[in-house]
């Protein structure tokens, strides 16, 4: 055989390998083929190609493996059990940038499915290799490594701790400062995943100086980057008062308020989440936010959104109002109640309604002034109907009951309480009647109104056990009116009169 023929055989084989690996990579980009490929035993075929002599084949094989593992967690497990990770990790430190990107992609695809797979990745020592990749010059390699680290750290706090122990955090903070937007996004999302688990991890991130850079990036026009940055800051701020104060000291207000006006929904949501996490810790922080005009911005944001995007904003109003009555009054003055009522009427999800109800309860529970402001919007009737609705979830019913109780105990605005007399169940009725019994003895006009609007009639119709609180209230109310009036409105009075007529002997 001539030399040429010998070489031809090798050439054919190489062409065949290249073709195979490119076709597999192409097919694996579509999720519907993955099942067939798995049954055909693609993992065991791709494994030796990972160590092929030709770099193109190696990289394409790694890419194909990554795509396969990305869509399907059985395949990801097969990648782990097929002993593919150790050679991948070794070559991660040696090969050129294309291979590094492909290998980082495989690690990311395997690590995203479950904590056990991520643990397996950590155990084969991939973290150190990935951290070394974070120092590479090529931004694509850095991005792939940061993404893989992010997916690993996402699952639980032990894995996050492992990532932090490998020394990733300072390098991630350096990555954030790079000019490429995609790299910034991924680094911010990884920092967010790391700091969300526990205060110590968040403190580690803060110690690396991340807050200043994250705060600067809020001004960036890219919407996805803003999402990630706001999410990272809110994960840091949520753990404790000190961390929240550190975030506030980075001068994010009033810049964060511009994010609430962004055209992207998720930027608005994450911005509202950040403000909520800061406001919930202490009255001083809430005061600071109110002084910066944050409440107005959040209220506008609630008014302009629909659905779950509103939820953090609603909760933020509730937290602010819960701290003290002055803050609650500030919320009322900033016209906070109408959007909350609108939200109750428009939304279909129970958890959003429950949040709005809780917020209203927090606003109205402090003093009669606050309760009056809430009651004037006629939202109490809506609350009552939600409480009585059998389709509402238990959580919603419980929150509605508590909110109603809190507001009613302070409410002295009788025109709003009147309509409730007719429909309320006994446990709510008790509070309503109690309020009437407190106000009526002192106010004549209210008494007249009470009689004319049929309230007295309704009171007579209520059956209460003698000696109970309700009965006492009813007695107090009855004692405010002359006896004839009370008798007139008591049920069965017309029958009694008719009986008297029947028994009467005309006096001639």
């Amino acid at each position, binding site marked *: 055989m001539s030399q040429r023929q010998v070489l031809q055989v090798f050439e054919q084989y190489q062409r065949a390998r290249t073709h195979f690996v490119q076709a597999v*990579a192409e097919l694996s980009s579509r999720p519907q083929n993955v099942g067939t490929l798995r049954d055909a035993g693609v993992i065991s075929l791709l494994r030796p190609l990972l160590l092929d002599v030709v770099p193109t084949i190696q990289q394409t094989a790694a890419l194909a493996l990554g795509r396969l593992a990305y869509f399907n967690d059985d395949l990801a497990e097969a990648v782990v059990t097929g002993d593919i990770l150790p050679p991948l990790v070794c070559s991660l430190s040696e090969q050129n*940038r294309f291979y590094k990107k492909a290998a980082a992609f495989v690690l990311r695809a395997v690590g995203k499915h479950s904590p056990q797979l991520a643990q397996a990745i950590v155990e084969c020592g991939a973290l150190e290799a990935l951290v070394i990749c974070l120092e590479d010059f090529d931004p694509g390699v850095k991005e792939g490594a940061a993404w893989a680290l992010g997916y690993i750290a996402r699952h639980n706090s032990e894995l996050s701790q492992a990532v932090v122990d490998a020394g990733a955090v300072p390098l991630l903070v350096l990555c954030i400062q790079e000019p490429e937007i995609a790299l910034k996004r991924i680094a911010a999302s990884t920092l967010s995943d790391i700091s969300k688990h526990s205060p110590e991890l968040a403190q580690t991130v803060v110690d690396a100086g991340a807050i200043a850079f994250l705060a600067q990036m809020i001004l960036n026009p890219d919407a996805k980057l803003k999402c990630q940055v706001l999410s990272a800051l809110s994960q840091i701020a949520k753990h404790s008062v000190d961390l929240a104060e550190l975030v506030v000291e980075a001068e994010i207000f009033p810049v964060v308020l511009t994010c609430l006006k962004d055209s992207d929904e998720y930027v608005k949501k994450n911005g509202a989440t950040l403000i909520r996490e800061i406001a919930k810790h202490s009255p001083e922080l809430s005061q600071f936010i109110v002084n910066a005009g944050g409440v107005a*911005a959040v209220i506008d944001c609630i008014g302009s959104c629909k659905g779950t995007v509103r939820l953090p904003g609603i909760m933020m109003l509730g937290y602010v109002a819960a701290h003290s009555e002055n803050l609650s009054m500030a919320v009322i003055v900033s016209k906070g109640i109408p959007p909350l009522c609108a939200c109750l009427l428009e939304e279909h999800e129970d958890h959003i309604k429950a949040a709005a109800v809780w917020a209203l309860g927090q606003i109205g529970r402090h003093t009669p002034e606050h309760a009056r402001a809430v009651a004037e919007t006629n939202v109490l009737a809506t609350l009552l109907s939600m409480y009585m609705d059998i389709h509402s979830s238990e959580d919603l019913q419980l929150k509605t009951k508590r909110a109603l109780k809190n507001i009613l105990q302070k409410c002295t605005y009788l025109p709003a309480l009147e309509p409730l007399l007719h429909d309320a169940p006994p446990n709510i009725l008790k509070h309503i009647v109690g309020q009437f019994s407190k106000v009526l003895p002192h106010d004549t006009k209210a008494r007249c109104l009470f009689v004319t609007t049929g309230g007295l009639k309704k009171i007579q119709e209520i059956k209460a056990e003698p000696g109970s609180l309700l009965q006492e209230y009813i007695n107090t109310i009855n004692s405010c009116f002359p006896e004839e009036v009370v008798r007139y409105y008591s049920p069965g009075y017309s029958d009694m009169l008719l009986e008297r007529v029947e028994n009467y002997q005309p006096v001639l």
Partner: protein
Amino acid sequence: MAALVRLEARLSRLREEYFRKNRSVDEDRKIVYKAAVKIQSWFRGCRVRAYLRYLSKMVILIQKWWRGYQSRRYFRKMIKIQKTWRGYYVRKYTHNYYALKKYLEAISLNNEIVRNELQEYAEMNEKEKKKKDLEKKEKEKKYKARKMHYLLSTEQIAGIYNSPFRKSPDPMELLLRQSKPLSHRQQRVKSPFTYDLYDWPTCKRPPAFPTGEPLPPIGRQKPQGPFRDTAEVLRQRYKPLEPTLRVAASISSPLEKAREEMKREEWIKCIHEHDVLFTEKILIIHSRFLPFSSYHKNKKYELSIHASEKKGKETYGIKHFREVQPNKWIAGKDFQTVLPSIVLFEKFGKTYSRAGQIV
């Protein structure tokens, strides 16, 4: 009688007994007296002490009660002062109604300002977005016009955008007039570094030079004139080579190396694939490349095309087509038309208005 005798017997001893008894009594008297005194004194002392204790307890009680009373009176006065002070303080500072009112007004003002600013910001963003969209559309339109430049109307034929029934040409027509036609060369839209197989969702830009401005030299004055920034120039000059995958990959493949080796050998030895006999190959090897070889001496030299033709301008294609030789004509007139002319062709150039002009 016997008793008397006994008595008389005792009588003699009586005096001595009497004396003895008195004496013993006298002797003990002192001791007994002293004992009695001691007992009495101790008892009296106890009584007195008890009495004193009782007295002191009473005294303490009285003093206690008195002091309590004193301090309570004092305390009531103190309370009054504190009460008035606290009431004043709370009304003035903590629950200051007027301050609260002012605060709430200030908050509403601030809210208004914030809302206005945010509104402005949102509007600005909207405007920018619209502007960008408009610009994009304009660019697309212009590109389309350049591509469809052939639709421009000419003198004879009005284009589709310039119907004679319109008062004025369509704006597209005007755009077509202004645009330069696209050349056939492909527009380079894609950057040379995107590779199809590696469809990374990110980082479409080529890998950048490692960032970091080089520090400017100390004490150097900025050169006058429109020079480019030194850092930029250095960056451009010293940009490292970034070979694409294809280039990077194919260098080290052993198959490629072998192939190249073979080609090189072929080139040196000038072996052709189709020669069968080994000896012929050797002859040919020797023949071409040994200088002054006698193999060639009998070969006839063939002239090249350039050398064999006569020099000068070639008449083929220039003079032979559509040649007119009036000296060969028979008559001076043109041919007579026998068939009637085609009506459509008569209308040529007369049906429409002069193309491109407003009728």
